[in-house]
């Protein structure tokens, strides 16, 4: 499979997910790159993060990604000779906070496919980044996805999940939940 010089993050994500799937590995787009998939006009990323559902042998991933022109670099990421996007495979399992992610969305484009966090999980993931580290950019991205994909984001599920996280780790700042929902209402 050839990636054009003008390939976008989404093009790379579809291609990488597809060649891994054909190699027998299920890789799910997560983190900031999943957010960039849903709100490309509002948030961009040069890192394409996949979690492979069951730990894949590195040589399988190497071989699959080599067909796209990606090679493993010293720091463990995969780099392309001309494209700026880096492929990374954080160690799984897929989880947002304490909760494992066992289902995701699969989008198709011609004969390519992409496994990706649902919009609700992207909101949870980006909000957790803000909640844990105070990262305002992550808060803005969570809000952008919640607004842009309002029909697909289950805000009750987000709120219930924050309560479960808070019950497990009381050191989280509960006021940040209120801030998220207040800003979301203000639009």
């Amino acid at each position, binding site marked *: 499979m050839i990636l054009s010089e003008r390939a976008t993050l989404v093009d790379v994500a579809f291609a990488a997910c597809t060649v891994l799937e054909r190699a027998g590995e299920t890789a799910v787009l997560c983190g900031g790159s999943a957010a960039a998939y849903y709100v490309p006009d509002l948030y961009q990323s040069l890192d394409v993060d996949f979690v492979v559902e069951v730990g894949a042998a590195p040589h399988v991933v190497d071989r699959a990604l080599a067909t796209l022109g990606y090679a493993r670099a010293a720091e*463990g990421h995969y780099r392309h000779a001309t494209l700026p996007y880096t492929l990374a495979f*954080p160690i799984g399992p897929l989880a947002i906070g304490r909760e494992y992610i066992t289902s995701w969305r699969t989008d198709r484009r011609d004969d390519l496919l992409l496994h990706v966090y649902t919009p609700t999980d992207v909101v949870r993931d980006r909000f957790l980044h803000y909640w844990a580290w105070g990262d305002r950019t992550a808060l803005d991205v969570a809000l952008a996805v919640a607004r842009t994909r309002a029909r697909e984001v289950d805000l009750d599920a987000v709120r219930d999940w924050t309560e479960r996280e808070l019950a497990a780790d009381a050191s989280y700042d509960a006021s940040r939940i209120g801030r998220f929902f207040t800003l979301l209402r203000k639009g």
Partner: protein
Amino acid sequence: MRRDDLRPAVFGTATRDRILVRLALSENGLHVRELARQIDSSANAVHRVVIALERAGIVVSRPVGTTRIVLLNRRWYGAVELRALLERLAHAYPEVVERARTFRERPRRIGKPL
């Protein structure tokens, strides 16, 4: 650190145990050199372990000036249980606990007597 140290090495080596225990005792994280000093190890050895733990998602680091501050990843799915285990494990490393107790992480006004 003595090579004949008979403590548990729950995380594979005594250095890993000490690094994780020390990080569990830290509110704001530590840079690698200070972390090495606190657990009586070399900066290179600590750096190697930190990279492995970061790849596993157990710790995170952020750049501050020319160094990196390392801390436990509270986003990790087992963070609560890990912290509880490390608080128990700290009893096996009283010298690490003692150094942590006397190490000041909070800001201190310039010129204020110790």
